[in-house]
């Protein structure tokens, strides 16, 4: 199973790894997945209270190369978007961008 160079890039140079303070009212946190399934992703966004746009995003992921690259890419795409725009990002778009295996 050979990954695309984009996946490898995100794996070796992940964007936006880290954590925000959960208690910060401008921070939204989502954790999905379970260790038994082999995938746990934590995605955090910091929303600018004036503009309503996502200022920053951070992630932490336990999972395979696809999982890591997807979450890393997601944080890149989220920055600068409004919450509505963010919700419209489809997982198929991420799959396509990274040329993920089925």
């Amino acid at each position, binding site marked *: 199973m050979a990954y695309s160079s984009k996946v490898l890039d995100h*794996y070796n140079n992940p964007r936006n790894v880290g*954590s925000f303070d959960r208690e910060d009212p401008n921070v939204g946190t989502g954790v*999905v*997945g379970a*260790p*038994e399934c*082999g995938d746990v992703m934590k995605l955090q966004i910091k929303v600018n209270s004036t503009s309503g746009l996502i200022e920053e995003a951070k992630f932490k992921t*336990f999972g*395979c*190369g696809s999982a890591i690259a997807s979450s890393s890419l997601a944080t890149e795409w989220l920055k600068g978007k409004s919450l509505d725009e963010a919700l419209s990002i489809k997982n198929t778009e991420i799959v396509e961008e990274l040329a993920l295996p089925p």
Partner: protein
Amino acid sequence: MSLPIYMDNNSTTRCDPRVVESMLPYFVEQYGNAASRNHSFGWQAEEAVENAREQIGSLIGSSPKEIILTSGATESNNLAIKGVAGMYRKKGNHIITCVTEHKAVLDPCKRLERDGFAVTTLPVDSYGLIDLNELESAITDKTILVSIMMANNEIGTLQPAAEIGQICKRKGVLFHTDAVQAAGKIPVDVEAMGIDLLSLTAHKLYGPKGTGALYVRRKDPRVRLDAMLDGGGHERGMRSGTIAVPGVVGLGTACAIARKELPVESNRLHELRNRLHEGISSRLDHVSLNGHPTRRLPGNLNLSFGFVEGEGLMMGIKDVAVSSGSACTSASLEPSYVLKALGVGDELAHSSIRFGLGRFTTQEEVDYVINDVVRAVNHLRDMSPLYEMHRAGIDLSTVQWTGH
């Protein structure tokens, strides 16, 4: 030292150049069919095959007459299990095996179950060992076969073959063992261990893929098998088909080399394996060993790395060839059933890496791998929400996860 480094010798092995050299004459110069009785081409081939039979037999303490040549251990396992089932069906319909067997044993058993056989699958303890008392109590007067592997391919654990053989002898049940990972790595003696059928394959002992053998006992008792392949009655009627002479010669040479070099090689691998283990666990926390700490194959090391996922880790050590018990790397999306049977838990099963050291593994390679693994695990732990939670003192077993 060149990259990539091969450390997956439980999956397959590189051919020993001496093995390849021994095979070459049988392609272009001595290319006869070993079953051709009437000319020197056939006689030469037959002689080479008989010589190989002896070499194979010597590795396991059997007579050459008891060696049946096959296309590999999957065929050998199928022939042993289905062959005994078919031949001894009137005597009984119960087979006993073990939950950590290779699919080449479990799947034939499944098929027999569909055909009306009863199969008992013994559980294992947290090291992967069966309980001898459980085995003994599972045997009934309808039991015709016990099939338990000598050494496990994933976790390296060695089953108590001699004791199993004793129990089977006492109870008058045939004992088959899948010795694919054990032959050539640890001493095997079919007489001393009371083995009636034994499978092995060339490509796990530095021989070519596509050739294997099944030892079938001829005396005390004389074991008979229903053949799977009909067509000429080769191999005492048990396995028809033209013998793959070059492959068989290769298997023979591989067995002869293994037998000769086993004591020295197993010590060397034992030391290298321990070096790898200590090198990694001295620099990382939350590393656990899967399988028995001492009753294991000399070159096998199976480790789980807490809070990182196996496939992700293999990506991080991309210049090292190993395998993982992670679901992502299996054809199904299930984590390793062997690790599950040990009670390791899905989480740690997803985090496991199997290192298989072999004849051509060097100390330099081991040291490189240690550094690479440590670096990759740390890189992943930096990205891991589980490690973060653990460091914050959260007990992960109490967390309510949401699936997706």
